[in-house]
């Protein structure tokens, strides 16, 4: 029971945060819905997304909510089944980027000296090399990048911004009294870093996860759109690729091209909204000031005076 208490407290904290912040609330509801769709696409997709069973190029109807493609596939089913890959790319790339950012950024700040100098240099170099052209060059050599290659490339190019931010934050915490106390107690570096140094940075780490996930969604769909992913998998980016190469917008099938774009935009906005909200958590100066609170504060100040 006692073990569960921190978890319960964290959940309660998250709930309070969501209730207070409309942006975070909207973002998490959208994200939750997309997660459910990604986990159980068969509950929602009416047809096999790849089967060319239907009349080609039909507009929206009760049978085909978003019409069919020029090959006679159901657009709505493609959209539902494609959710999984985009959500997975976001979560997996976000996760590994965060691990790398925290590992490299915090190690650099904690160790200092030569280690800090070399890790910072590495971070800055990766940061300034334009990532998207680099991704294009890497994926161009393998025809049809597989899912895991895509993940590897996006992680390699996506961790540096977070590492830099986390290093700065960790530097500002490094010489606080409670950390020095832990060191004086003779705790190991591992303990100091994982138990004392990282927890206060949670909100910044979450914000970093969200922006890495957003970056991954946009970059992966862009790569798939220009035909550098595996064009035979079901994803929103490949849908856009086929819609564009069959000129969906010009031939009266706008929904085929619009729907996957809207889907990417919805996932992207959910991540961006959550990120915006977490920015406000990690930097209290940015929190919205409500009039009620201001009045309360003013009353308090008067009472003190």
């Amino acid at each position, binding site marked *: 029971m006692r073990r569960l208490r921190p978890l319960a407290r964290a959940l309660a904290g998250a709930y309070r945060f969501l209730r207070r912040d409309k942006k975070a609330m909207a973002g998490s509801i959208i994200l939750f819905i997309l997660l459910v769709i990604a986990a159980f696409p068969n509950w929602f997709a009416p047809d096999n997304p790849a089967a060319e069973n239907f009349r080609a190029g039909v507009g929206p109807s009760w049978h085909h909510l978003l019409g069919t493609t020029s090959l006679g596939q159901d657009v709505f089913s493609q959209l539902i089944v494609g959710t999984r890959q985009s959500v997975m790319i976001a979560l997996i790339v976000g996760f590994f980027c965060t691990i790398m950012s925290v590992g490299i950024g915090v190690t650099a700040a904690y160790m200092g000296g030569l280690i800090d100098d070399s890790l910072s240099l590495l971070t800055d170099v990766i940061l300034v090399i334009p990532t998207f052209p*680099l991704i*294009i060059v890497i994926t161009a050599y393998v025809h049809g990048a597989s899912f895991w290659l895509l993940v590897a490339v996006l992680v390699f190019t996506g961790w540096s911004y977070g590492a830099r931010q986390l290093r700065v934050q960790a530097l500002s915490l490094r010489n606080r009294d409670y950390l020095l106390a832990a060191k004086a107690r003779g705790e190991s570096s591992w303990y100091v870093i994982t138990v004392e140094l990282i927890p206060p940075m949670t909100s910044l780490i979450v914000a970093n996860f969200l922006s890495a996930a957003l970056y991954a969604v946009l970059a992966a769909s862009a790569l798939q759109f220009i035909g550098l992913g595996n064009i035979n998998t079901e994803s929103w980016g490949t849908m856009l690729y086929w819609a564009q190469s069959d000129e969906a917008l010009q031939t009266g099938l706008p929904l085929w091209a619009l729907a996957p774009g809207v889907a990417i*935009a919805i996932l992207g906005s959910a991540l961006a909204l959550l990120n915006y909200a977490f920015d406000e958590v990690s930097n209290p100066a940015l929190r919205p000031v409500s009039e009620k609170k201001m009045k309360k504060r003013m009353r308090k100040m008067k009472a003190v005076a």
Partner: protein
Amino acid sequence: MRFLVRRLGFLLVALWAALTLNFFIPRLMPGNPAEAMMARFRGHVNPSALSALEAAFGIGKHQSLISAYFQYLGNTLHGNLGISISYFPIPVSTMIMRALPWSLGLVGLSTVIGFLVGTAVGAVSAWRRGGKLDAVLPPTFIVISAFPYFWVGLLAIRLFAVTLNWFPILGGYSETAVEMWSWSFVGDVLMHAILPAFTIVITSIGGWILTMRNNMITVVAEDYVKMARAKGLTPQRILWQYAGRNAMLPSLTGFAMSLGFVISGAILVEYVFNYPGLGFMLLQAVQNEDYPLMQALFLLITVAVLLAIFVSDIVTAVLDPRTRVRS
């Protein structure tokens, strides 16, 4: 002066890293694409092109990887980037020079517009924090910045070029136009640039707004701003000449980060609009498997970004003495 040397040193290290990546990527990818490419071109391309390729990639001469690496570095430093395969026998550097002005114009212009408008909106929304403008504009543009660039471009084409017919659909200029310095040609180029530029601006502006708003909120709380208010200066003057000027400095530093995003967006926007710049050429090179052209373009884009970052570093140092002291 020390600051300048440090930044210059960093520029060189980053350049070296980019060159090294450029050299090793085709060799370390599964299946060694460089060798595979040479095997495919043998017999299809004439011998002089083949030897040019071998020189560009440093292979086929039974030399070690290390000596090939140094030969490649030497070649690149001498501006010897090889010969384009898809536009044989035009040297890669000539091809690039044709595309460069288009990209510089498009990306440069839309970056400046995005920076100015975004910074202004960010400053005003922080100044009137909690006001109507602040409640609407920053969240809206942050959501828009989560849209895929190329998709916004597709929508813009559909709406403004196909349906409303206000702007031309594709390209950098009309096919009938003659390339020369005349008013009609310049007008034609501008008409073609408006939609791509609009796409880049509208998707990149959210970042500028957010950075400026966050900085401005911190700066407005500073004592010298209070002092300015106490002196009874007009709000406009405090906003732009006191708080705004200082809040803009981190945005200039952030310029380095966002430039990468703008470039990647611009590549896709150029692709969607068939705009004759570096990004469009890069993707065409990818489709034609024109690896020398592709690698040279990657290198050039990287150099351009690194130089822009270097310049923004210097400008920040000139404007903000604190950055000079800290380093």
